[in-house]
């Protein structure tokens, strides 16, 4: 029996002019009800593709889902047709916050109109009830002066305000599973903290599960119970964030963590990487890995529980 949210053997590819390119190959990823899971990876690792796959919003026909299943509350989302995803999941039970608050709101409609559209569609509200609900939502995300914000266009709001509006829209219809795709990526540091706190509070208040996508290990450590590291579309390390961050086993995770400056006096360390040829069949990290041996070139490591408890996909993990 799969968990509340569980990805199994998911494989997604994109058709390009040079043939197909695999962008996602996830053996297993589990998120419990009411839990926050942090997914970390560099740009191009496949984080956003994963988010769009869950919602069934991959660009077609460029993207192809080859195999796997995405279990959500006992149902396999990948087996659902567009109609059912539209009618029963998107916006209703699954919601997503996108990376860039600057481009996620439609520039030619007021904030109020955009909230109203979703509330009308998803909750069937009309007239004064829509206005009341919109106001409630903006107050829920702690936007000051909600009444006048409703009449504003997105370009009249700051980045942080926009992200709050976006969160309000995403959660307007009682979604229980939120995908937050680098929600603070394009915001100032001070604003970031506010948005993160908001997501954290809402998660607790509403009891929702959150797939928190980030390219910042530090954020995940404070924010998430469990964490996974995505590299080239593969989950290379997965487990309680405490373990993944504090006792990283995978050389890639270690490199990521060593890149965080700890205090001023410390000189920034950049792991020196020996560039080797790409391993076609082997470990995706082979070409950049300092520990790699010939087995890494030939065979693909699978996620296995390590001595300290988290799962790691690396032949060298226990040999360090």
């Amino acid at each position, binding site marked *: 029996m799969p968990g509340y949210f569980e990805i199994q053997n998911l494989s997604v590819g994109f058709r390009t002019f040079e043939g197909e390119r695999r962008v996602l190959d996830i053996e297993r990823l589990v998120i419990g009800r009411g839990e926050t899971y942090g997914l970390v990876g560099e740009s191009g690792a496949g984080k956003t593709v994963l988010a769009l796959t869950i919602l069934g919003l991959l660009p077609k026909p460029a993207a192809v889902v080859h195999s796997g299943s995405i279990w959500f509350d006992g149902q396999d989302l990948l087996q659902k047709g567009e109609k059912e995803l539209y009618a029963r*999941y998107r916006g209703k039970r699954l919601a997503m916050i996108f990376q860039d608050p600057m481009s996620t709101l439609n520039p030619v409609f007021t904030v109020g109109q955009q909230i109203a559209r979703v509330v009308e569609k998803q909750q069937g509200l009309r007239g004064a009830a829509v206005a009341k609900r919109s106001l409630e939502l903006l107050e829920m995300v702690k936007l000051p002066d909600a009444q006048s914000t409703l009449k504003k266009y997105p370009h009249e709001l700051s980045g942080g305000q926009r992200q709050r509006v976006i969160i309000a829209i995403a959660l307007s219809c009682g979604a229980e599973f939120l995908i937050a795709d680098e929600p603070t990526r394009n915001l100032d540091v001070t604003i970031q903290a506010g948005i993160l706190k908001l997501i954290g509070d809402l998660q607790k208040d509403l009891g929702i599960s959150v797939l928190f996508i980030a390219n910042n290990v530090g954020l995940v450590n404070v924010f998430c119970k469990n964490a996974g590291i995505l590299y080239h579309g593969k989950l290379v390390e997965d487990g309680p964030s405490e373990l993944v961050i504090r006792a990283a086993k995978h050389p890639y995770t270690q490199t990521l963590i060593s890149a965080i400056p700890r205090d001023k006096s410390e000189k920034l360390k950049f792991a020196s990487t020996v560039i080797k040829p790409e391993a076609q069949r082997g470990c995706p990290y082979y070409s950049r890995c300092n520990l790699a041996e010939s087995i890494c070139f030939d065979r693909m490591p699978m996620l296995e529980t390590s001595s300290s408890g988290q799962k790691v996909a690396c032949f060298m993990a226990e040999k360090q």
Partner: protein
Amino acid sequence: MKKFILRRLLLGIIVLLGVALLTFFLARVVPSDPAAKWAGPRATPEQIARATIELGLDKPLYVQFGKYLLDLLQGNLGYSLRTRRPITLELQESLPATIELVLISTIAAVFVGIPLGVISAKRKDQLIDHLSRLFSIGVVSLPTFWIGLILQLVFFRVLGLFPMGGQLSTEIKITMDIPKVTGFIMFDSLVTGNFRIFLDALWHIVLPGITIGMYPVGLVARMTRSALLEILNEDYITAARSYGLSERIVLWSYALKNSIGPTSTVVALSIGYTLVNTFLTESIFTWPGIGNYIASAVIGLDYPAIMGVTIFSAFSYVVLNLIADIIIALDPRVRV
């Protein structure tokens, strides 16, 4: 918004002044003697001298220009050299027929062109998209007079479905009283309940209407398609889908409203183009409109008439662009 419109209005007036200046001086430098033309083909030198004074041609150029502007302001475009009637009056008579044509082509551009572009963008690279693109490229690249002639050949000569030209059948013109309320035959006949005249007018407008409407429809469809395709890749479209909004709302409201800028600009430009195109279309279909009027004015070297139509066209361009600007200002970011 008020300031925005006011500024555009001011700009329009400047453009019109420029056009007035240009037409005035062009008409003065063309190697022809307006007074001689006015006085008639066998005029004596005395008659020509009298005509010169009558037309004010003896006064300094700036005085003439001042008088010209003053007349323009009062809607007086001068007298036709051929008919000696006020040009304003003649334009008024031929205008409704042209407006009927332009209106039809604009309605087609908006209500056929835009949906065609939207469907094409929605079904990108599918059969309907290929067909619509083929059609767009076809009608945009085929010359109007060729389309007109082919339509006449097929639908009049071969199939005999539609009349060859004119705005009404001769028998109707002779036997029936043509109602005159606004000058627009279709409108007038409809409001006065003359359905026979209305149907006859409708029957006559089909071929010239298609001829002149093809280009705007093709252009608008193409522009809408490419604008939409770009917009459909925007984050806010994916986001809207993730909120569970229907594809209908996403496409026809969220995406289409964002494409209003390029689309309405093209519609406005294509109206301008249509006005120019009436020159050919009206000649081919002997349509009693402005195009036909200017065609005969050009052939008859009727300078005041040519100037009048030029000023009139410039005026319509300015008005159309103003309307387009106002529509574009529906996009809140444009209002500065």
